[in-house]
């Protein structure tokens, strides 16, 4: 190797320092922005130790989080797996914020740091900034200051009302976290710090000026005709905007027994749940995008002679581990690996654009052979979530490669039936079923607030829309209902209605539940 070629290398040993990190970052940035056309938030790379990584894990990956015992439980769990050597730590953690924060572990070698930089600081970062779900449903620039506010607020509440009182509210709110997101309606933007401050001041003012005397006034019930009451009820229902899918939102706004600080805590939990909602809908795309980006960038760096064979082999080894997909009967099978599926689909799109077969031209007439794989991918990353992405882009070639098959499983049969396999008749069915399995709306129980008689016994009626006859797990359901009652203050009942026939399948109420 000539001297000129050697000096072209970004780094040679596996040790890293801030100089090599910065040099490598710049080289990666050039490729990412100029060649791939990525568009990213400014980056902030933070070096942390493995203990700090474990800490970050247990507080759902956020740098700031309020305190709760469930995070301690998660920590104990992760710590145990890590110490037993059953699970390695992630090499990186990235936060959807502006600036985009990426954690790099100090134990990583320089080659790994380069890989992680490309993966998180450009792959994930681009996805966060450009995907429509993140753009519409989360507010990257506000999340960190909001979490800081949340943490301080909850500490303040603990000092004022006691740890156990706050914990009870948090427990109940966490139980409803899955039902605490707006799926169809866009959530209101996080208001600015100042506005929140003002709202809180107003609440505090209301608390101070509340006079118990008003309650003692005699009711003016003289001569109210029933039709008026009925009209009131329907108006009230309309005012409450029922049915409502966001249980936490409904309870926060409508519950009659909550104190202002308790409402604020519900709101905090709801905002956190909402913030993570897009991530759950784009697991395959997000990881696929990041993996594709790091793979492409690393290969370009190697082609340019900026990293040596040793580093490249190291990266390829961990890349291969990440995209490993064991077969369904393998003891290691944990489900479809989102990294593997996402990465394979992105590569497949590149192949279809550049080097299509006749079959691809049949299936993807718009993009096959167009050669514009970068634009196609950028467009897909921006405008899809997992469900629509798979429905749109999963090709027969890939179904054959993964040897995917569709299994139907009916509870009252003692066998599972193979419905489709990777053949001409099965492609469409497999693609549709796989896409559906990534549709959170379809897989999570659909539970809505249907009715509440505020003028009468204030009984809160929830409805579970049962799809495909899948009921709720009973112990957990009853425990969760108790949490709803805790927040609502009055009896709560849940009715299971079959989506297709409209029949009532089951009914349960907190009145019947023993504590």
């Amino acid at each position, binding site marked *: 190797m000539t001297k000129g070629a050697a000096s072209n290398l970004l780094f040679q040993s596996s040790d890293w320092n*801030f100089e090599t*990190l910065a040099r490598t*970052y710049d080289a990666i940035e050039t490729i990412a922005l100029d060649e791939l056309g990525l568009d990213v938030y400014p*980056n902030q790379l*933070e*070096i942390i*130790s493995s203990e*700090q990584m*474990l*800490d970050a894990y247990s507080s759902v990956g956020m740098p700031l989080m309020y*305190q*709760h*015992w*469930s*995070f*301690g439980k998660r*920590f*104990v*769990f992760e710590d*145990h797996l890590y110490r037993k050597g059953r699970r390695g730590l992630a090499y990186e953690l990235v936060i959807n914020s502006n600036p985009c924060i990426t954690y790099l572990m100090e134990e990583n070698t320089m080659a790994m740091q380069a890989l992680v930089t490309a993966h998180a*600081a450009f792959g994930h970062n681009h996805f966060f900034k450009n995907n429509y779900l993140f753009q519409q449903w989360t507010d990257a620039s506000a999340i960190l200051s909001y979490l800081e506010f949340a943490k301080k607020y909850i500490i303040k509440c603990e000092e004022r009302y006691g740890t156990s009182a706050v*914990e009870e509210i948090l*427990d109940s709110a966490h*139980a409803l976290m*899955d039902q605490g997101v707006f799926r169809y309606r866009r959530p209101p933007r996080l208001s600015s710090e100042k506005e929140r401050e003002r709202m809180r001041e107003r609440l505090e003012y209301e608390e101070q000026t509340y006079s118990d005397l008003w309650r003692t006034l005699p009711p003016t019930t003289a001569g109210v005709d029933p039709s008026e009451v009925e009209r009131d009820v329907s108006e009230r229902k309309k005012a409450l905007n029922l049915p409502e899918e966001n249980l936490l939102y409904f309870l926060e706004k409508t519950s009659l027994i909550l104190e202002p600080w308790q409402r604020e805590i519900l709101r905090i939990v709801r905002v956190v749940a909402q913030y993570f909602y897009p991530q759950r809908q784009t697991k395959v795309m997000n990881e696929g995008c990041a993996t594709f980006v790091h793979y492409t960038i690393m290969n370009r760096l190697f082609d340019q002679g900026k990293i040596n064979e040793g580093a490249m082999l190291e990266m390829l080894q961990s890349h291969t581990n990440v995209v490993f997909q064991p*077969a*369904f*009967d393998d003891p290691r099978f*944990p*489900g479809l690996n989102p990294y593997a599926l996402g990465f394979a689909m992105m590569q497949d799109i590149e192949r279809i654009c550049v080097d299509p077969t006749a079959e691809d031209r049949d299936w993807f007439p718009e993009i096959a052979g167009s050669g514009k794989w970068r634009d196609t991918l950028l467009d897909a990353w921006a405008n899809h979530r997992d469900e629509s992405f798979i429905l749109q882009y999963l090709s027969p070639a890939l179904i054959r490669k*993964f*040897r*995917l*098959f*569709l*299994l*139907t*499983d009916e509870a009252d049969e*003692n066998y*599972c*039936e*193979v*419905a489709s*396999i*990777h*053949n001409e008749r*099965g492609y469409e069915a497999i693609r549709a*079923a796989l896409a559906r*399995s990534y549709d959170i709306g379809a897989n999570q*129980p659909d539970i809505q607030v249907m009715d509440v008689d505020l003028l009468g016994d204030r009984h809160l009626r929830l409805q579970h829309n049962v799809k*495909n*006859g*899948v*009921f709720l*797990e*009973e*112990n*957990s*359901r009853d425990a969760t209902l108790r*949490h709803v009652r805790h927040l609502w203050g009055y009896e709560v009942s849940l009715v299971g209605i079959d989506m297709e026939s409209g029949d009532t399948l089951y009914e349960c109420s907190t009145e019947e539940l023993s504590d």
Partner: protein
Amino acid sequence: MPNFIDRRLNPKDKSLGNRQRFLKRAREELKRAIKERVKSGKITDVDAEQNVSMPARGVNEPSFQPDNNTGERRHVLPGNREFAAGDRIPKKASGGGAASAGAGTGQSEDDFQFVLSREEVLDLFFEDLELPDMVKLNLKESVAFKRRRAGFSASGSPTNINVGRTMRNSYGRRIALHRPARREVEALADEIAKLEKEANGTAKHRKRIEELRQTLEKLERRRRRIPYVDPVDIRFNRFEPQPLPNASAVMFCLMDVSASMGEREKDLAKRFFVLLHLFLKRRYERIDIVFIRHTDEAGEVDENTFFYSKQSGGTVVSTALEEMLRVIQERYPAHEWNIYAAQASDGENISGDSERCASLLHDELMRLCQYYAYVEIIDERETEIFGTTDNGTSLWRAYRTVDGEWPNFQMTRIAKPADIYPVFRKLFGKQPSVQLRK
């Protein structure tokens, strides 16, 4: 150029608060687990880290979850080899791994173990013993260390410089590098001065002075370049923490194992022994435990047999004391060992033997022992009757006489865990007056 931030020096243990909250939440379950462990484990094991399994109650986080045993669901799985459309795979059969794959993905967080630190274990163990906080603190405290000289090191703080060693190194280096001695330089300077005084102006003379001056300058340059004391010479005294030398102690556990001692009695006795062991462990580096059980005959046994095996027969307490005496004479001479004894019994004894026990204690054992504790385990209902009175079993009455005479003898009746601690109160109270270390 991105913004790099080094967070490695930030405080770790951000999750510590969360961990404590979690333990508090799971306290009842964990306490039960530790209690079980004390019951089934060895006495010496209590004072260490413990693995406990994730408690099932109190810490589950419910939410609305689909029930995997109902309705119709569809799975897309990779890696098909032999299936064709329409094949049926029986559930639960070996080939039907696919069916369970869908259900089994939600790996349970419940079936794993995690480690409680020694402090956390002791906290849980102490909880219903009602120890005063001071005592708890004392017990949790680890062994004291003393710093001891241990050779020299090349780094350290300036106060620890060892001058002798440093100068020796400096001297050796000066010799090795031929640093001119001051004596040499001074002699040369004197000679130059002398020659200059003579000043006879001959060329030879001037040349001689010139030569000497050059040599002098060379020597001085050399002295400057080779310092008298160089940083490499410096040596520091090195200190190592060493545990304080503690004498050894032996702890005798005596227990009646006749049929009248049931599960509850044995459990209480065990806690009593564990606590004594903790107290002793704090003071002594090395503790031997001797287990002596007795019915109508006594024998030294291992811990397992001591607590778990049953024996039938009458009850002759003095046999145990005799056995203890024998073991002391054989293996634990009193001038080398601190001897502690703890006896647990339900107070039953064959008639006439209690007096013999008392005299054995009076005449022999109490002279040898640092401390002798006797607990009589009684029914909770009996506390009302006996309470503080002197009447009771014959053994109790006989021991009362010993109690009056020997300050290091303690006896009490216990019916519940909280009663155990008072037995030890005196042991702590007299700590300054009685010399415990030999």
